């Protein structure tokens, strides 16, 4: 029983991180009908931005002195990483995606794969392939209930991810930018005719999605201890599957999908075999496409000529 609860908690925290990343995929897909393959790399760059920010703020000194990293500095690290990732997301959109926006559908997809490869391999050159230990911007505290171990890191992941998702929900439902984004998502051309600056909406969509991915990156680093330049590849794909599972283009769906994928992965690893933890994600994807291609919370959208 305690083992089951332990796997459940680990699965939930992993799932929350997937959910944060999945939001970026689903938002971009919503407005542009594009699988932003580079999103996994934005997540990775976000994690590295947090790493360097923490380092610049002297996290090593606090570690050496055995003191905790002050909360305001930790929040500053989070803000820096989110800002850096948002900037990268907007840059990628402006330099790579905008020129091919009106091209045949395959062109943006190949561009996205190219950008993803480019970011990943530049990161391999700049950061080196060796994994790095993530700085302790949160001093770990362990709680034990009936053989189940919960750390404050896991709790923070869950709380912070929930807060960010609620924030996003409010942003989309209550602000005028959110209204514009929803209109663009429904029909880009019509939204443009209605006087919505769709270029602006797309930029902000990339910025928001990337910032959330960066938050995911920092949480991932804290949770998984090390980061490396290739961490975005599989994590990104899993988050994308989460978005498809929840219903691509659907924001609550991305959160639900993320949690479900995290749990599925953790339970597969714990009870079946860790060898198939990655395979299960793809089996879920194929099953969803076969049975319910619109996803759990998605609506069927007929493609117009």
């Amino acid at each position, binding site marked *: 029983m305690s083992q089951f609860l332990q796997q459940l908690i680990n699965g939930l925290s992993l799932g929350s991180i997937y959910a944060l990343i999945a939001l970026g995929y689903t938002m971009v897909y919503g407005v542009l009908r594009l699988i932003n393959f580079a999103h996994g790399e934005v997540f990775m760059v976000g994690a590295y931005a947090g790493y360097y920010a923490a380092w610049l703020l002297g996290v090593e000194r606090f570690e050496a002195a055995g003191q905790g990293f002050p909360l305001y500095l930790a929040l500053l690290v989070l803000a820096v990483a989110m800002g850096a990732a948002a900037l990268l997301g907007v840059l990628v959109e402006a330099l790579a995606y905008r*020129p091919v926006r009106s*091209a*045949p559908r*395959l062109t943006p997809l*190949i561009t996205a794969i190219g950008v993803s490869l480019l970011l990943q391999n530049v990161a391999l050159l700049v950061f080196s392939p060796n994994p790095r230990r993530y700085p302790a911007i949160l001093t770990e505290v362990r709680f034990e209930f009936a053989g189940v171990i919960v750390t404050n890191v896991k709790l923070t992941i869950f709380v912070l991810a929930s807060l960010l998702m609620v924030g996003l929900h409010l942003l989309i439902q209550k602000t005028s930018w959110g209204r514009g984004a929803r209109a663009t998502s429904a029909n880009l051309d019509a939204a443009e005719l209605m006087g919505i600056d769709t270029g602006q909406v797309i930029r902000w969509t990339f910025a928001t999605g990337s910032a959330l991915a960066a938050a995911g990156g920092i949480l991932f680093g804290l949770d998984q201890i090390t980061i490396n330049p290739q961490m975005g590849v599989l994590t990104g794909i899993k988050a994308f599957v989460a978005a498809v599972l929840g219903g691509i283009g659907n924001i609550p769906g991305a959160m639900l999908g993320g949690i479900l994928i995290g749990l599925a992965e953790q339970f597969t690893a714990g009870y079946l075999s860790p060898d198939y933890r990655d395979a299960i994600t793809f089996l879920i994807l194929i099953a969803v496409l076969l049975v319910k*291609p619109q996803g759990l919370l998605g609506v069927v959208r007929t493609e117009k000529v």
Partner: protein
Amino acid sequence: MSKSPTLRVVVVATLFVALFLAGVALRANVIEYVQRIVLLAGINIILAVGLNLINGTTGQFSLGHAGFMAIGAYAAAYVGVLLGPLVEGWCGPGLLADGLTLNLALVVGAFFSACAGLLIGIPSLRLRGDYLAVVTLGFGEIIRIVFTNAEFLGSATGYFGDEPAGLREYTSFFWVYVWALLVVVGLYNLTFSQMGRSLVAIREDEIAAEAIATPTTRLKVQAFVISAATAGIAGGLFAHMQAGIRPEDFRFEKSIDMLVMVIIGGLGSISGAVLGGIFVAVTLELMRDLAQYRLVIYALLLVVIMIVRPRGLLGTRELFDTWKKKSGPSQGSRA
């Protein structure tokens, strides 16, 4: 190709003899290092032309051809080890036995890859092309995981056949280029057949194609299965050239290499794919000292080509279109 049947037989026979002689000449005169790169180039041609059918002609998108290649490679390797001694028992050791074993193994490899293609194609090809990209990517990963865990195929160490004979090096210049020729001619004829035109129609406008009663899903699945089978053949040739294969040889990067071959050549151009295949084989070797920059360069190439020439360097055109002074059939259909 409206020539008389006799002429056609003569042409084909001459080609085969020429290939055989070229192979003998290559073996005798050129260092083995270059021989191997020439073989790799031939295998790349098969890969690129096969992938082009899906990514270029049909406008779908596979990122998992390394997986199909792996299936073909493992199946062909296994069958080759199994059949090798048997075939030698029938007709004695020699070129004949080697060729027979190799080709039987290749056919089995292609069959297994085609089956995998069918299995993946049916669920994902009912949907839009970008899902196919993710499903095939995932499929490639799963295949690698399966081979990594398959103990009878050597798990992570790789499959080298059982001692003492083991996996033999059956692949020769002659057979690589016979198969390259078969695949190129076969897919050329397919592209300019009725099916090929329907595939192009799917690429240009799937809904419109469906509206004129094109069985889009069935055609897409057929094309996908054929493409998977060619990757399987390439995998089989690779396995018998390398005389040992590892799951790690079929990483995602391999699929990217194939994608680069197709895009450099031009999405939809068979001669382009041939050039792309040769280009990648040669540049890989020339860039050995720049290994860490290789994927950066490939990635930049992808992005820049997509922005500047969305259809790839050659576009859908064939290299000899202009030499024939008349436009090929694919040109008419381009928007």
